[in-house]
């Protein structure tokens, strides 16, 4: 396999962009990434578009041809890649394989989601498509509801209080303040979270990643192409893996473990030739506070049932044992579902380049992004390593 | 009417939904004196129930008591005036839900509150003739009560199912005979497209309810050479409590005979299920050898009357499924606003 480098990144701020369409968002993020990489549009040989719901919400499919048309580079290989809320990370994995295989020298991957056009009940219907339409969506379950099942079971099995799990959102907001792309740039108090309306008992509104629009893009190149660019820093996409688990939680032996996280993580570590202790920061997929806690456990940074302690004891702060969600995570930075996986990697990129400002993790050299589809039906881990 | 081959009941089952609304509460909303209500409370179907789902549970209970494999049932007749579809039979859905068919005769029947007993009449004929081995007759309704109307105080929901086979040692009870009396008497009707039925007030009494039940019951007793004292229990259609008590007196039955079969005070008028649920309650308690008279009444109008004798097998097999009292005792009371929401009486568009 050839080495793959992330040479450019760009994104839109995440917000309810009433004035920007799905294609506007994709194009904006892509052009920013192209500029950041210092390449020409025509250098791009392939485009991978990560997106979950353009069909149900916008009536638009065929995003590959759409973006090559709207960017003005018709002819390139381009197609949509979908894995529910892991679409971004999985699109990145596709892009990675296309360069690692030697097929392409330079590719663009862009994750995009436009959610704010839809009314709440329609959005809820679109998001439950991440689980089984016939046997789970059929029951009237919402995606928040499925995570609520896990939340309650977690609290009861490990005797953990909701207020300790909700702290994850407080953490996220603290770091969202300094992220220029973040949807929410204000801190939030625990009391505010715990008194926000119930969405699906016990999950409260402010424990859920918000609804927003956004697009984030990256440029990947091989060694040959990199040599033609005059870049100071060089960041390698050293590990990239995708794993699946049963689509719905009723098949799982332990509903409080996302097995695919462990599998994808181990594959990525192996590919990069490193160990868990070598990782300096992690971006985890906290669509809900309970998931943030569980991911810390499944990634092996805490024992089962103890992930919340890392949060409470400050170990996930930028100067803690395992800096986590250093730019606000899904809760504060935002979660335009198909784009999230790319935002996460963009944030790791910023950290490794030393461009994270007040959120900078000192001497960060290796970081990873864990992006989840559905309730763990897909997990992708993308691992970046600073070369120079 | 007697049959060439005697027909018996292999299994029976009933269902009453969980919710109740007190008549006092309905009176409160419409400004009626609390003392001027016909019954204590009536059953209210939940938002996820309809006459079809209730029939499935009643049918399941009947199958449990019958100890017959579902695929041996050859006919499903469903009597209701409140099917969920105006066109598309409930019988097919009920059959599939119970694992019955596809080699079956199935149809939905309509004749106001006697549709269930008319279904039973038809199944008796099919079993006796040998066309089928076992058949299921169902009466089920989620009756529509027009807000503020007299009938809102009693229009309730419930279902009952009976599985019939040739009389044998295995049947729980058997039919000695039946009698039907039908005339064109427009005491209660609903035109196509209308949500709620109309009734003709006091005309629904003597010329309708009383006349038809009287004629059917009298006709039955004469044909079989029986008198009221030959019966241990009598069950009449029960649109309220007053009418069946008066009917009993008119025919010469006393209060003890009618007690077990009279539930309308607690659950309201379950329309096509009414006399059948009363009948099921009697079967839940009756001793082998006892004789029961069941007479339904359906507006329009007509009455089916049956004479049934209980057999030994009932003592063990009635324990195999929930009893009518189990459903009657299980209740949650709702107020008029929740009732209105459940009955979709609140305009959302």
């Amino acid at each position, binding site marked *: 396999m050839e080495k793959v480098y992330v040479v450019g990144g760009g994104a839109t701020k995440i917000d309810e962009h009433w004035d920007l369409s799905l294609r506007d968002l994709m194009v904006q993020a892509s052009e920013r990434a192209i500029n950041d990489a210092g390449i020409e549009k025509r250098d791009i040989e392939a485009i991978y578009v990560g997106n979950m719901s353009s069909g149900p919400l916008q009536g638009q499919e065929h995003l590959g041809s759409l973006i090559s048309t709207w960017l003005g580079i018709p002819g390139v290989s381009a197609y949509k890649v979908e894995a529910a809320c892991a679409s971004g990370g999985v699109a990145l994995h596709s892009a990675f394989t296309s360069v690692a295989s030697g097929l392409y020298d330079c590719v663009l991957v862009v994750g995009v989601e436009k959610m704010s056009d839809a009314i709440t009940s329609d959005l809820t*219907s679109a998001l439950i498509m991440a689980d089984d339409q016939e046997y789970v969506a059929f029951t009237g379950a919402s995606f928040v509801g499925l995570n609520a099942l896990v939340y*309650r079971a977690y609290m009861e099995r490990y005797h953990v209080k909701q207020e300790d799990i909700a702290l994850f959102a407080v953490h996220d907001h603290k770091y969202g303040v300094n992220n220029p792309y973040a949807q929410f740039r204000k801190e939030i108090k625990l009391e505010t979270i715990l008194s926000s309306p119930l969405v699906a008992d016990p999950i409260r509104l402010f424990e859920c990643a918000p609804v927003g629009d956004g697009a984030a893009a990256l440029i990947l190149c091989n060694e040959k192409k990199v040599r033609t660019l005059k870049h100071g820093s060089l960041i390698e996409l050293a590990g990239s893996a995708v794993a699946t688990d049963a689509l719905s939680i009723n*098949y799982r032996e332990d509903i409080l473990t996302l097995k695919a996280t462990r599998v994808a993580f181990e594959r990525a570590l192996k590919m990069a030739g490193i160990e868990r202790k070598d990782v300096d920061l992690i971006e985890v997929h906290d669509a809900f506070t309970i998931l943030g806690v569980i991911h810390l456990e499944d990634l092996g940074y805490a024992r089962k049932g103890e992930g919340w302690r890392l949060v409470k004891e400050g170990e996930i702060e930028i100067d803690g044992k395992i800096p986590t969600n250093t730019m606000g995570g899904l809760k504060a930075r935002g979660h335009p579902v198909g784009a999230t996986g790319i935002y996460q990697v963009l944030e790791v990129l910023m950290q490794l380049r030393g461009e994270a400002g007040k959120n900078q993790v000192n001497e960060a050299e290796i970081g990873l992004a864990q992006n989840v589809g559905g309730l763990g039906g897909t997990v992708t881990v993308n691992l970046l390593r600073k070369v120079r | 009417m007697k049959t060439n081959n005697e027909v018996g009941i292999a299994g029976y089952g009933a269902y009453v939904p969980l919710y109740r609304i007190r008549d006092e509460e309905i009176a409160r909303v419409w400004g009626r004196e609390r003392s001027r209500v016909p019954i204590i409370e009536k059953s209210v179907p939940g938002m*996820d129930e309809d006459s079809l789902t209730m029939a499935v549970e009643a049918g399941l209970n009947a199958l449990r008591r019958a100890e017959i494999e579902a695929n041996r049932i050859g006919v499903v007749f469903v009597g209701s005036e409140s099917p969920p579809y105006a066109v598309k039979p409930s019988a097919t859905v009920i059959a599939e839900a119970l*694992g019955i068919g596809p080699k079956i005769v199935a149809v939905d029947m309509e004749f106001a509150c006697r549709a269930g007993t008319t279904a039973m009449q038809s199944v008796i004929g099919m079993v006796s003739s040998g066309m089928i081995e076992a058949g299921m007759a169902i009466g089920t309704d989620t009756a529509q009560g027009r807000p503020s109307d007299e009938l809102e105080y009693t229009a309730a929901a419930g279902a009952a199912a009976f599985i019939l086979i040739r009389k044998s040692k295995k049947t729980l009870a058997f039919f000695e005979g039946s009698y039907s009396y039908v005339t064109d008497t427009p005491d209660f009707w609903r035109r196509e497209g209308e949500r709620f039925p109309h009734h003709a007030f006091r005309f629904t009494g003597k010329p309708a309810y009383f006349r038809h039940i009287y004629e059917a019951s009298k006709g039955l007793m004469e044909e079989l050479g029986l008198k009221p004292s030959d019966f241990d229990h009598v069950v009449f259609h029960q649109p309220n409590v007053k009418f069946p008590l008066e009917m009993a007196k008119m025919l010469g039955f006393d209060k003890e005979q009618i007690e077990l079969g009279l539930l309308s005070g607690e659950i309201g008028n379950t329309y096509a299920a009414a006399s059948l649920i009363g009948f099921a309650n009697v079967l839940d308690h009756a001793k082998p050898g006892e004789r029961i008279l069941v007479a339904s009444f359906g507006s329009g109008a007509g009455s089916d009357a049956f004479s049934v004798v209980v057999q030994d097998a009932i003592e063990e097999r009635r324990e195999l499924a929930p009893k009518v009292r189990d459903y009657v005792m299980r209740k949650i009371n709702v107020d008029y606003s929740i009732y209105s929401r459940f009955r979709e009486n609140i305009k959302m568009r």
Partner: protein
Amino acid sequence: MSVKVRSVPRVWREIKIKYRLIGGKCPNCGKSFYPYRDNCPYCGFKGAKEVELPREGKVITYTVIRAPPADFTQYAPYPIALVELKDGTRVIAQLTDVNIEDIRTGMSVEAVFRKYREQGEDGIIEYGIKFRPLLKS
């Protein structure tokens, strides 16, 4: 645009499985699962047998849906639970005939046939299995 997944043939295809809770039992690894299909989701063995799953079980965990998907908006709030049937098979289903405040993890429940949703006011009705507290404890 409105997101509704309506189709008549889809409902018809699922009748047996949804009306009667038909699952699969794998003769190779012995596990049971819902819904039935011939590939065992656990060991991949092709040849699972159709079984009528047990109609009693217990609530493993539950929630209350307060922000429902389209087609369910008029029913909210309603409870959803992960139910473990007597043979160990787990299913996700709505709970019914119960006050929200009375639901408990571990409570015994039984299967009932109920309406899940309508394909609009003039479309067909979709039925399936929900669970309620035991009628007789």
